[in-house]
Structures are given as C-alpha cells and as structure tokens.
C-alpha cells in the first residue's frame, strides 16, 4: 500500500517535472514559456518532496521534516522570480503572441531590436 502510494507520488512528480521542461521547449513566446516550469516547481517537486517525506518518516527514525523546508522555500520564491522575469521581459519589450490593444503601436518586434533600443535608452540617460 505504502509502496504503491510512493510509486504514484514519484511518478507524478517526475512526469510533471518533464512536462514543465517540455513546455519550456515547445511553447512559442517567452510569456507562455514562463507558464511551463511553474508546474514543475509546484506540482512536480512538491509531490516528489511529499514522497520523500513519507519514505523517510516510515523508516522508524521519526518524522522527517527537512522536506518541508525545501517546499516552503520553493513555494515562497517561485512567484517572486517569475514576477521579476516577466518584469525583465516587459522591460526588454520582448515579442508577444498576444495581439496589442487597439490604438497602441508595436514599438519593437523582436529581441534583437529591443536590445538595441534598450542600449540607446541607456545612452540617452
């Protein structure tokens, strides 16, 4: 019973870690790519850590709580780093697949032009 539960948790975690990296490769612009690895962080590593906690708690050496530290730290830091990454992408004006709102003009169309415009902004300052 415990063995089946551990196998299920380990397989779920590994599959979601794989799907997160697959999304990182397959999706087409940065803002959708940002969506992929968050699944790997929360569900993938989360269930792997639950499996590890169960495994070490049932070996007769008391409750294992190291995993809770890693889980807590990952769940706190993942939104912060995703927010900073999207802010950096918006600052660099990366190309997005989403259509612009009416009346706004696209200022740049790709990462190469945007780095050039960023450098010229920095020179102007």
């Amino acid at each position, binding site marked *: 019973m415990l*063995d*089946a539960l*551990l*196998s299920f948790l*380990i*397989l779920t*975690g*590994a*599959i979601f*870690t*794989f799907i*997160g*990296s*697959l999304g*990182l*490769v397959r999706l087409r612009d*940065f803002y959708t*790519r*940002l969506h992929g*690895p968050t699944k*790997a*962080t929360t569900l*993938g*590593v989360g269930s*792997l*850590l639950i*499996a*590890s906690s169960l*495994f*070490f708690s049932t*070996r007769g050496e008391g409750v*294992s709580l*190291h*995993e809770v*530290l*890693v889980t807590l*730290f*990952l769940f706190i*830091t993942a939104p*912060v*780093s995703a927010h*900073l*990454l999207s*802010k*950096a*992408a918006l*600052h*660099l004006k*990366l190309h997005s697949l989403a259509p612009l709102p009416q009346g706004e003009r696209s200022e740049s169309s790709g*990462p190469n032009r945007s780095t050039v415009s960023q450098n010229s902004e*920095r020179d102007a300052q």
Partner: protein
Amino acid sequence: MMSSVALPVAFALVAAAFALSFWRLLVGPSAPDRILALDTLYINAIALLVLLGIHLSSALYFEAALLIALMGFIGTVAFCKYLLRGDIIE
C-alpha cells in the same frame, strides 16, 4: 515496485527534462529565456537530488537541495535585476 519500476522511470524523465531545459538555455533566443531555462535547471537539479536521496535512502541530500534552491533564487533575482536596471547593487 517502487525501487524497480518507479525510480528508474522517474530518473529517466527528470534526465530528459534536464536535456530539454539545457536545449532552451543554449538556443535562447532572448536573455530572459536563458534565465528561465537556468531557473528550470535548478528546479530539475532539486528533483534529481530528492530522487537520489530516496534511491540511496540517505537524508544527506536535503542540505544540498536546500542550498541549490537558495542559490538558484539569488542567481535568478540578480540576473533579472541586471536586465531591469543595468546594475545589481545600486
């Protein structure tokens, strides 16, 4: 069943995830893409260390996983700050 089926399959899947993120790190095309790929590589390294801890039934690997999580977060924040401001410590 766990050590004979689930663990090898999980190791293979996480290794494939490593390869895919590393491909994104090499290809890019923009700097935030590469930072995101590096962040995903840290997450995959944590997953692989947890799996290795279960496989060897040793609780020694959590310290390493915690350190990788800490350093990965600090590295991502520093890279993003550099892209946003052109400087890390102002």
